[in-house]
Structure formats: structure tokens, C-alpha cells
């Protein structure tokens, strides 16, 4: 498909054109914050209007794009109790036509993982709240050129310039221009809207080199190949490392809520008088009550068991059940963990246990 060149300072024009073409445009933006030594920069994906400043291409956003496909809370339907009768009202599935700009390769790769869970590929049950949103959403991804210390996409089969799941992929070249690759039909539509800003065929060689250069900056390099077979050996489920590495885990859900592929949710009724909504909202396998039976029995009773489940989910369950990657290597769980529980340390340990000696090279202290 088509490749082209776009000037980086034309990104504002891109936003204008897409808005004019009736797209809801989502882009990463810096959040206003209070001054002082305790606050740090925060960037999130938000709807953007013409003229708003964005920070496309400036590091990985604090949170990903998951909320635009799988919101942190959403009503499933409304109910009203009328005496002995109940009236249900369906929610609208008419979602706005959306384009998400400046998505990092790891985030956009996570979409197919989520799709594997929520669409009818999973046991035939189609969660239309997800799939109808996905149908209406176009992803314009943006290669990483400056991966940070927590990034490890290269360990999970991705790269700073991956275009997996993308509709239109951009790569910033050293000369400051953007290399644009149209990947899908939806991407073509975007390209058509911004056609006036595109020129030439793009510099494929420079784009390739930019990707390689970025990948070289990733220091957390783990070989994830031995992980799946090791996890599949049921004997390793009781391995001592789970408890040893996991005991400092405090059981918050920061890693799961920041994770682009974590999909667990809970359902509750939120009531006001006789009316209310049944609401689906993010839940976390790290919470102690997540698997607590009404009887008081808890299938994952200790915190290390919950983290073991998370690790298994990322590297085994996702592949076994949904046939997709469970981890895209964005590193948010590492950045966000209050106690520096590092998933790549688990990966290294597993690789070590699976007797792949060179897996340890990135972490010489861990003997």
C-alpha cells in the first residue's frame, strides 16, 4: 500500500482535516498539573480539538488507548423496577467515528489481544460494546525513536517501529519528517483526508534505519521464547520463585489497570430509587476479593499467587486461550509499580530456570 512523507509540523493540520472530516480525533496530550517538586508530567489520550496542543511523538503516554475501546466503566443496559415488573432499556451502540493519532506500536498491537477476548473469536460471544467501537476506530500509530528504560517490546516479538494492528503508521525520521505507511482500508481513508499534506513515496531506507536505531536503545532485552514451554510444565507452578519474587507485591492493581491487554472486569448494579444501570467496569486479578467465593474460599489466597496468575495470563493463558500475545512490552507495569516489582525480572528468572544462559546477560546482578 501507499507510503509517503508528511512534515511533522503538519500534524496540527492533520488534526484539523480529520476533525473536518467528522472524525472524533483522539491524541496524546499533556495534562495540566500543579507545580511543585512532587508532581511529574502526565500525558493521556484525550479527544483533541483544532488548536489544542498534543504531544504526539514525545514519549509513551501515562495511560494507553484501552479506555477508547473498553472504557473503565460503561453501562450495559438500564433497568427500572416497576412493582413486580422490570423494564430493560438497551444502551446505544452507535459510537462515533474515531481516529486515534500517535499510538505507540505497543499500544496498537494490544488491540488485537483485546479483540481476541471480547469478540466472538472467544467462545462465540461477541461483546458488541467493544467490537462496535473497534469497527468505528482507526489507529494511526507512531514509531518510537526514544524508548525509555522500562520498555521491552523487543522481548515480546514487537519492535519500536512495529505496525501490527495499525491502520496508518508513521515513523519520525532523523530529518524531522514523518514516514507514512498506509496499512489498511481504514488507513487509506485517513490518507485520503490528509492527502494534501502527503508527498512523495517516503524514504523506506531511513524508516528502516530509524527502527533499528530505536531497537538498539532498548536495554531490557529478554528472550521470551523459553517462557511458554516452562509455564506449560505444571511442575513449575509450584516453583519457589513465585513466592520469592512476589512477596513484596502489595496487591494494588496499578500494573493491571495500566496494562494495554488486561481485560478483567466486574459487573455491578448502580441503583437510584427504582432505576439504575448495570455497569461493567475494570477489575484486577491482583485484588484479594477478585476470586473470593461467596463461601469464603479463595482460589488465589495469597498475593504472590495473584501475581503468578498475572504472569501466567500474559505469557501462557493469552496464548493458550485467545491465541494472542498477552504482553506488548510497553513497560507501564514496571513504571507504575510502587514497589518496583518488575515483570522482566520474572521473565529473566524463568529464562534462567529454563536454562537459557544468555538470557541473564541483561541483568547480571540477578544470580
Amino acid at each position, binding site marked *: 500500500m501507499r507510503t509517503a512523507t508528511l512534515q511533522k509540523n503538519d500534524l496540527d493540520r492533520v488534526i484539523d482535516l480529520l476533525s473536518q472530516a467528522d472524525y472524533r480525533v483522539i491524541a496524546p496530550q499533556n495534562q495540566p498539573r500543579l507545580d511543585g517538586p512532587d508532581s511529574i508530567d502526565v500525558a493521556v489520550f484525550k479527544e483533541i480539538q483544532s488548536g489544542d496542543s498534543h504531544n504526539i511523538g514525545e514519549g509513551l503516554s501515562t495511560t494507553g488507548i484501552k479506555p477508547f475501546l473498553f472504557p473503565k466503566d460503561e453501562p450495559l443496559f438500564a433497568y427500572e*423496577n*416497576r*412493582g*413486580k415488573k422490570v423494564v430493560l432499556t438497551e444502551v446505544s451502540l452507535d459510537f462515533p467515528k474515531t481516529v486515534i493519532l500517535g499510538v505507540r506500536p505497543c499500544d496498537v498491537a494490544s488491540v488485537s489481544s483485546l479483540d481476541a477476548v471480547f469478540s466472538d473469536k472467544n467462545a462465540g460471544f461477541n461483546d458488541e460494546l467493544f467490537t462496535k467501537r473497534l469497527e468505528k476506530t482507526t489507529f494511526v500509530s507512531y514509531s518510537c525513536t526514544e524508548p525509555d528504560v522500562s520498555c521491552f517490546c523487543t522481548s515480546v516479538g514487537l519492535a519500536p517501529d512495529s505496525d501490527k494492528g495499525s491502520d496508518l503508521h508513521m515513523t519520525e525520521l532523523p530529518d524531522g519528517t514523518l514516514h507514512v505507511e498506509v496499512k489498511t482500508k481504514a488507513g487509506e481513508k485517513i490518507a485520503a483526508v490528509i492527502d494534501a499534506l502527503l508527498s512523495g513515496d517516503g524514504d523506506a531506507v531511513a524508516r528502516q534505519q530509524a527502527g533499528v536505531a530505536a531497537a538498539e536503545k532498548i536495554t531490557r532485552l529478554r528472550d521470551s521464547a523459553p517462557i511458554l514451554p516452562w509455564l506449560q510444565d505444571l511442575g513449575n507452578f509450584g516453583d519457589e520463585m513465585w513466592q520469592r519474587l512476589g512477596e513484596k507485591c502489595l496487591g494494588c492493581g496499578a500494573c493491571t489497570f495500566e496494562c494495554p491487554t488486561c481485560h478483567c472486569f466486574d459487573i455491578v448494579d448502580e*441503583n*437510584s*430509587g*427504582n*432505576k439504575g444501570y448495570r455497569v461493567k467496569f475494570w477489575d484486577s486479578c491482583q485484588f484479594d476479593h477478585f476470586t473470593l467465593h461467596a463461601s469464603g474460599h479463595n482460589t488465589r489466597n495469597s498475593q504472590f499467587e495473584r501475581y503468578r496468575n498475572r504472569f501466567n495470563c500474559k505469557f501462557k493463558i493469552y496464548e493458550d486461550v485467545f491465541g494472542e500475545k498477552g504482553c506488548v512490552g510497553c513497560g507501564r507495569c514496571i513504571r507504575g509499580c510502587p514497589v518496583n516489582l518488575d515483570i522482566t525480572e520474572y521473565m529473566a528468572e524463568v529464562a534462567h530456570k529454563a536454562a537459557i544462559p544468555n538470557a541473564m546477560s541483561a541483568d547480571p546482578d540477578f544470580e
Partner: protein
Amino acid sequence: MAKIGVFVCQCGNNIARTVDTADVAKDASEQSGVVFVEDYKFMCSAPGQEAFKKAIRDHDLDGCIVSACSPKMHEATFRNAAEAAGLNPFKVEIANIREQCSWVHNDKEIGTAKSKDLTRMMIQRVKYNRPLERYRMTMTKRALILGGGIAGIQAALDLANAGTPVTIVEKEPSLGGNMARLSETFPTLDCSQCILTPKMVEVQNHPLITIRAFAELEKLDGYIGNFKATIRQKAKSVIDKDCTGCGDCWEKCPFTVESEFDMNLIKRKVIYIPFPQAVPTVPVIDRANCPKFLKDKCGICADVCGPDCIDFTQEDEIIEEEFGAVIVATGFELMPNVYKEYGGSSMPQHLIPKKMNKKQRAAQPRSTSGRLPDVINGLEFERLASASGPTGGEIRRPSDGKKPKTVVFIACVGSRDASKGVEYCSKICCMYTAKHTMLYNHSVDDGKAYVFYMDIRAGGKGYEEFINRAQDEGAEYIRGRVSALRKKGDKILVKGADTLQGCAVEIEADMVVLATAMVPQADAIDFAKTLGISYDKHGFYSEQHPKLMPVDSSTGGIYLAGACQGVKDVPETVAQASAAASKVMQLFSKEELMREPEVAIVDKEHCMNCWDCVTVCPYLAISPEEVKDRNGNVVKMVANVNPGLCQGCGLCNTVCRSKSIELQGYTDQQVYAQITAFEGAFV
């Protein structure tokens, strides 16, 4: 599934005027769980109650809402009716659509909508009402009376005459209190001691009354029906049971100090009874002033004592006794003269408003003595006028014993003036000042009495007539305030204003009598804490309800009598004492004590033993409890509520972060259901 009945009351037109009750009933009938509704003119009438009972029986209702007036009015009515019909009374709730709705709205549409909401909320709430049982507990049918003044004496006699054993604890060596100090009483001018001492003798001789004079309550544990009092019997240095009260000891005692009973106007012996008619007639040694104790000299009293009952080695005795009820009758004191313009000194420690910080409080001088000796207060005047007083009833001024020819009486000293004293009216001063002028005029034929007053408040039977009589007998009433008292030779120059005449007034008086404010005892607040009862900002003890429960304290089983609760004259004090006694009799008339079940309960599973509830409980009703496993090992500690002590105030509920303690009848589930049933709750 709930089978709920909803009964909407029109309250004649009281509710129906602004609420479409039929519409409220219809709306209720459409709610899940409601199987019966009724819209009726007067639910509380006998036919209304019958219909209520019939509906419960006919429809086997398991919850009822009466949408009517405030639960304060008829909750008990309908709960009793439900009980009679076989439904647990705590499954009945009142939705207040009168005081909180029809009476405060004019618009019928709004009133009706709000009534529907209130009723719906109660319907949801009652689904979570659990049947509750009242607690039954045994009780000790003995009463403890704190204070042996006229209030304590009256309450003790009433109770003992009704067959209840009583113990009176009096901190002074004798019963009598302030009333024993008075000369005559208004408005009849009968001799105070003449009417008081027969009652004291009756107390002394009553087989059911135990007098603990020269004793103080140290601690009160327990709860209504089951109090445990720790009483300190101060060492009298005299063996009670052997003493005959012959008087040899105090007659022979060579040492004297100022007599507190006589307002320091005269001296008493160091071994003494406060006044001749004292009950008990057992003297005590004032150890702080006795040379035997100070430097081991003297000991004459022991030498002269016939029954050999002086015991210098006697020690304070701690007595623990159980009681079912307590009557607090600790009385009052007069505010000392703290006004420089009246020749007094600065404010004494305990009267300084609590708003002052520690530093400010510490800076206040402690002395209460005045600079002008012939400026005295009302009680001092009473002693001067009393036949048993220091002057044998002749009015002589303290400085030189002369009969004062001109006496100025000043009313409202410290009262009715929040900026300088207390904001309340001390109520008795108008009357006793009038009495004083009469006593003075009777004693000093050519004497002239002036009264400076703000208003005359004489709202009692025969009171106004009494004031008129005082004026007829020669007292000159000047409406106005006194601005200063100055020493002028051996006289006191009184500078004031006559606001009726609109002129300044100066009177050269021989003596000035100040009607200083009536205030609680100096240690009233500390004592309230010992008892665990509440008090107002002045230190007067608070009644449970100012109109409907005027003798109940805030704590169950503790009742109030006399001036400790607020300013009172003798007849009011006696009436309240009898009322308190009858409350105790009412309590003791039952076989067992019934406690309402609306007390806190602990969720032992979730309690995390932080003891915040223990710390916050004003009634000391919560204590740590051990939870043991099958083998008797303590596995954890949890909070435990003593239902006898718990008053259901709910403070523990608010401090419990883990939501492990809640009030029966007001559980989180009930309250939450009620709130969420309000459609506007989360808009």
C-alpha cells in the same frame, strides 16, 4: 419476600391539606413488596389502630410503614399495636410526612411528591429491618443520692418511704446543704431550719436510709439498673458508731478556724459539727488545721471523749456499693464577688469561661476575698440574719459589728450579663433580696434599705405580693445599675443611676449586699465526667429533654434534682426531687429492666481492633473482647458492646472505618436502602 403494609394518615386536615394522601397510598401500592395500603383520616385513633392491627393479621404483614407525624409522637403507639397484632415492633417504621412535609410546604404537588419519596424510602428501609428483642436485665433496687441538701433529703425520704433502700453521699460532715444556711424563706418568711431539720431527723432515723456524710463519690461504673459506685469515706477521725454526739470534744477543743458553714463570718473549732442541728451529730477533725496532725501536739479531744471514739489513725475508707439508680442533687454555690467596681477581686479559677486557653486561665488570680469587708453576698446576709448565725440573728456588719443604718442591696450581680458574668437570670435573687430588706427592716427599726434592680421577676405563687410587701415595709427600689462602690470613711459610697428618674444616685451605705449569680458547684464539670452525664456551658447538668424529660440526665438511670440542673428556689427543688424519686420508683417497680434494642453491635469478623470505638464511646460501653478458637487460644481481639451501657448514640459507627460496628435498628443496610430509594439521591 417482604409483605409490607403502608398506612397513610391524613391527620384530619393536618397532612391532607398539603398532601394528596390517596396518591401517596397509590404510589406505595405500586412498590415492590407492598401488599397492603390504607389511607385514613386518623391512623392514631382507636379505629385507626384497630385497622392497622387487622391488616397485619389479615395479610400476615412482615413490615409496616405509617406515613404520618413525627416518630417522636406515635412510633411507640404503632409499635405497640404491631406487637399486639403479633408483628415484631421493630418492623414498624414511621415516615414523617407531617412535621417534615405537610407543615413546611404550601404547594400540594410538592408536598405529595415529597411524601411519596419519604414513604418509598421507608419501604426500602423496612425490608432490611430485622426483628429485634428488647434486652432484659436484672437490677439492684437501691438508689444512690449524691448530695444531702434539701433536694437529696426530699428524694431520699420519698424513696425510702416507698420502700426503696437509699444511700445519701454528702461531702460535708452534715446534711443540710445551702438551705440550712438560710434564715427565713420567701414568700412565707418561715424559718428555714425549722422546716428543714425535722426532715433531717427523719432521714437520720429512717431504717432504709444510709447516710454517708463527709464522703465523696470517686467513680461510677456500670449502667442503668446496675451501677457500681466507689465512694471515699473521708476519715472523720471519729468512730461513727461509738460517738454519742455529746459535744465534749468540740467544746474543749482549744483551736479555731473560720467556719465555712457560716460563710467565714465566725470561727469554729477544729473538731466540729457545722451547725448545732447537724445530722449526723458526729464531729469530724479538720486535719488540715489540727495541731495533732500538723505537729503531733494537743489531743485534748481524745482525752475528753467519754466513749473513747476519737481515732487519730483512722484512714479514708473506699466503699464499693451497687445501685440501680442515681439521683444527682449536688446543688449550687453563689458566685463570689469578682467585680472590682463592687469591691470584689478577680474571677476565681473555675468560673473562667472555657473559651480561655490554658495560659489565660493560669493568669487569673485565685483569691476570692473582697477588698471591702462590708460588701457581702446574699448567703452571708442569710447567716447574719439567721437566729443560729454568728450574730444570733441581729444584723451587724462584718467589719466592726455595728448595726448598719443604711443598706444597699444590688440585684443581678453577675447574672444576665454574658460579658461580665453569666447570661442567665439567677431567678431567686429578686425574691431573696426582697426578703432581705424585710429581715433587715424587722431587725433594724430605723434602717433604710435601698434596692438597685434591673427588672423585678416575681413569677411565683405569692411572689409579686411579697415584693409589694417589701416595698410597703420601707425598702426603696431604684431601677438602675450601680457603677462603683467606694470606701468613704467607714461607709461605702454607692454610685449608681436611677434610670426611671434619669438621674445619678449616690448613697452612703453602711453595708452593701450583692445578689451574686447562682452558679454550679466549683467541681460540677469534673463531677459530671465522673458520672458520665452531660452538662451545659455553665456546668449545670443537662436534662434529657427540656420539657418532656426534665429530671432525666443524658445517661439512663441517672436523674437530676435541684439546683445542679439549673437555678431553682426551694419549692421547685423539692418538687424536682420528688419527681426524680418517682422516676426511680418507676424504674424499680418492674421485675427486670427492659432496654431498647437499638444498641451498637460488632461485626466480629471485620473488626480490626483499633479500639477507636472504645476511645470515642462517651458511655464507656465498649471494651476489648478475646475471640478464642476451639482450643481456647486467643486468636484475635475484637470490640464488644455492653448493651446495658450503650445509649445508641452512634459515635462508634461514625469512627469505625472498617464498618464493623453498627446500631441495631439503624444498620448501614437500612440507611443505605433508605437513601438510595430517594430518586434524587445521586443526581
